[in-house]
């Protein structure tokens, strides 16, 4: 007993000795490593932090009528940058009712006005999301010492959402003229005077659209949603290979189809600054399609889900670059603004999504007046949205094939004057644990037989989903849950080994 107690004491003593030593050592090392840390060496250099583009409405200057000093290109760019920053910080300030950043771009007396607005809105619990889309500033005066500038910002197109507490109360788009005086202070061009002035008669050049020839061909669409087998949802990625694409187009030719639908991912293409190598790849795909006599529907903004007013200008620059780059390509059939935007109604607010789409629709019409525009709604019911705005209506249908024609005709009864395209439909032949072994090639054949019969009978233009079964499906498409994603792999008419599945013959056009 005594011996045991002794041993216990010994063990305890040694253990506590070791523990105390360990503690002391770790304490000393913590102190030493703390003393060794310091500012990052590169922070000694006051390097300018490269800023992402955050706000880029379209700005068109007119500088011919300036009686003062001749405007330098460099200064004009600085003025434009700081003027847009002034708009941006104010938009953000009214969104959060926070003064952050305002002092950088407004002089002392001008910023007081902004602060008074913020305080009032904070008290009334209302806030605003706003953005400006286009500016047409006209330089009135630039002082000899280069520190004062006056200009008239004409036809400023502004979109604003008014929120009361947390709910959207009112949306508004307006066009306003401003007279602005800015001063160069501490290296910033700051707003000194900012006046809203009488709107001159705004004469917007009417756009001559010439889409009739293409629109009349839409009823003849027999198409396919296309991704290369090895790089689904990543057509323009690292594994881009135009000979593979060309081969695929051969197969599509063989099937007797005349149209493909492709997708451009917003981030992949570089957001507001569209990457030129991506545009090159896009042109190669269009060239290949042109060689194979295929028409191409380009779907923009894939994997984009933030319709926030704050980012409108960025998405518009993105679309503008792509649209203007390929708008004269002979293979282009039309623009699909966004794939299944109605799926974002819940998370982003129906009104926000619709406003974004509507505005994008207007802008794309300006940039490319000669190609029709559509939106790929996820169901025939959702396709009623903005049906008056788009040039032709597109929707997707993945439900019971027997009910298809009822749903289609219901939509046709509302949309009477525009072509209606079944832009996505299909059936997965996946047969496995996650769908209780309920799918099969046979069911896929049944599905397409029923669908194709109805499509032929009712003369519905169609674009089915898709050419290949895919080995890999990115998680962005259907999440990471296997019972959701597994069936995504088997919608094709050619299987993973490159063999034609039985549906191939059904989908082959006479």
């Amino acid at each position, binding site marked *: 007993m005594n011996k045991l107690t002794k041993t216990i004491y010994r063990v305890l003593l040694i253990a506590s000795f070791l523990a105390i030593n360990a503690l002391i050592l770790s304490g000393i090392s913590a102190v030493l490593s703390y003393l060794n840390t310091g500012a990052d060496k590169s922070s000694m250099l006051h390097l300018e932090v490269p800023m992402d583009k955050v706000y880029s409405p379209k700005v068109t200057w007119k500088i011919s009528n300036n009686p003062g*000093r001749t405007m330098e290109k460099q200064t004009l760019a600085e003025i434009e940058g700081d003027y847009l920053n002034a708009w941006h910080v*104010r938009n953000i300030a*009214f969104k959060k009712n926070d003064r952050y950043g305002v002092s950088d771009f407004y002089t002392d*007396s*001008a910023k007081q*006005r*902004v602060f*008074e*607005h*913020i305080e*009032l*809105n904070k008290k*009334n619990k*209302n806030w*605003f999301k706003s953005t400006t889309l286009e500016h047409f500033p006209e330089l*009135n*005066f630039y*002082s*000899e*010492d280069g*520190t*004062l500038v*006056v200009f*008239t910002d004409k036809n400023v197109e502004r979109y*604003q959402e*008014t929120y*009361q507490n947390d709910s959207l*109360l*009112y949306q*508004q788009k*307006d066009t306003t003229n*401003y*007279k602005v*005086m800015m*001063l160069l202070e501490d290296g910033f061009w700051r707003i000194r*005077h*900012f*006046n*809203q*002035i*009488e709107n001159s008669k705004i004469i917007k050049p009417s756009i001559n659209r010439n889409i009739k020839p293409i629109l009349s061909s839409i009823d003849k669409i027999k198409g396919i949603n296309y991704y290369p087998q090895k790089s689904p949802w990543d057509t323009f990625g690292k594994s881009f290979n135009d000979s593979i694409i060309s081969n695929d187009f051969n197969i599509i030719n063989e099937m007797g189809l005349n149209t493909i639908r492709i997708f451009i991912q917003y981030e992949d293409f570089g957001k507001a600054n569209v990457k030129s190598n991506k545009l090159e790849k896009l042109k190669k795909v269009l060239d290949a399609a042109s060689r194979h006599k295929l028409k191409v529907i380009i779907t923009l903004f894939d994997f984009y889900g933030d319709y926030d007013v704050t980012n409108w200008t960025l998405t518009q620059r993105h679309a503008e670059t792509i649209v203007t780059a390929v708008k004269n390509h002979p293979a282009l059939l039309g623009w699909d603004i966004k*794939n299944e935007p*109605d799926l974002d*109604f*819940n998370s982003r607010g*129906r009104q926000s999504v619709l406003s974004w789409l509507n505005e994008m629709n207007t802008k794309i019409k300006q940039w490319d007046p000669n190609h029709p525009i559509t939106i790929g709604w*996820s*169901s025939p*019911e*959702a396709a009623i949205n903005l049906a008056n705005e788009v040039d032709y209506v597109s929707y*997707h249908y*993945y439900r019971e094939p027997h009910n298809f024609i009822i749903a289609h005709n219901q939509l046709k009864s509302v949309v009477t004057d525009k072509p209606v395209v079944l832009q*996505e439909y*299909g059936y*997965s032949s996946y047969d496995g644990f996650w769908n209780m072994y309920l799918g099969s090639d046979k069911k896929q054949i049944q599905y397409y037989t029923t669908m194709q019969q109805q499509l032929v009978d009712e003369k519905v233009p169609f674009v089915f*989903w898709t050419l290949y079964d895919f080995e890999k499906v990115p998680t962005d*498409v*259907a999440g990471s849950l296997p019972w*959701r994603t597994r069936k*995504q792999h088997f919608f094709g008419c050619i299987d993973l080994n490159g063999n034609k599945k039985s549906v191939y013959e059904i989908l082959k056009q006479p």
Partner: protein
Amino acid sequence: MNLKYFILIILFQLSCSREQVSITHAENFRPQIISNKTIYEAGETISLEFKTNGEVDAKILLKNAYGSSLIAPELNNNNIVFKVPVNYRKKAGICNWVLIVNGKSVTKGELQILPKSKAKPTLETYFGPRSITAGISDYSMLVCVTTDIYDNVFPEGTDVLFRSQFLNTISENTITSKDLISWKNIPTTKKAGRILVNTSFKEVTSSELTSIVFPSNAVKFMIKADRNHNYADGNQIIKFQTDVILDKYKNIVSDGTMVNFIVENTHGALLNTVAPTIRGIASASILHPSEKDDWKITAYVTGAAKSNTITAKFKTAIKDYEVIFSESNRSITIGPLTSFMQQLIPDGILIQLEIYNKSGKHLETKKVSSIKGFGHINLEKEYHPNGDYHLKLKAAGIHKEFDLTLDE
């Protein structure tokens, strides 16, 4: 992509139907504005009153250049009254309003707010560039903005008085404002000096602002040289001086204008000394040469003007010197070096010895400076073994040659 979101569709339909209800409600109801005044002066009380048939959920959305606000009404009998907050009332320009009932705009309008003309105005004056050069083409620019007590710019067509003074001339001009500002170029003068300006509007006058007219570029000028004696002793200093340098309008050039004196010697080498002007005069110094020389001196104000060229001749100060070999020819003593009055030359005359072997191959150059009239050179055994050598000695422009045998 391929998924059928039934719930979503149902939700979407629900949201559609809910909205339609509110539309019909709003359409049935159009409040009429009672007040028809649309032009106000900044600071004045503004309230917008609408006729309604009882309580409604109405808000007014105000917008001016600086931002927007949502205002709740007050009830007045059966009418609703919106009091425009002070930050909208004191900002001149256009103020838009939209009456929103149940989330829909039912009527809208525009208020025009004018700057407050009664109270004491303020003047903002900007003047620059503040330093200009004399002549005919340069100018400063005076810009003026007139504002009311709420910092609103007075409308186009406001007259502002511009005054400027130079020597005995005071000029006055009335300038009409356009694009927020009134402005005038203040031209430079042929005489250097200061131009004072100010502006006034109504009873308010700005403070005095100054632009300095600096002299223009220098034109051709003269130089002279001054020295104690004309011996090339390598010790005395020769001084160069310009006359008063002027610009083409007879203004003395600005203090600190750098003048570059370039000396060309008989070998064609260029020596250089620089001095800034003070009251138009620049003076620079340079050491006498240590051998006979002829100098040509020209001064430049870089990029602007050039002087005349003067010459300076230097006579030999050291006529000859002795060379003594000792310690088996390994120690060479040069001197005494004496100057024009047989005085020992000041320390620092360069003595140069070039050593060749008997086949004429150059082995080494040794350089020493004279100390107290003498120079010493040793030829060490380690570097120069016994044998025949040829030596060339040069000091104060005098060359001497020796054939030498080292055997110890």
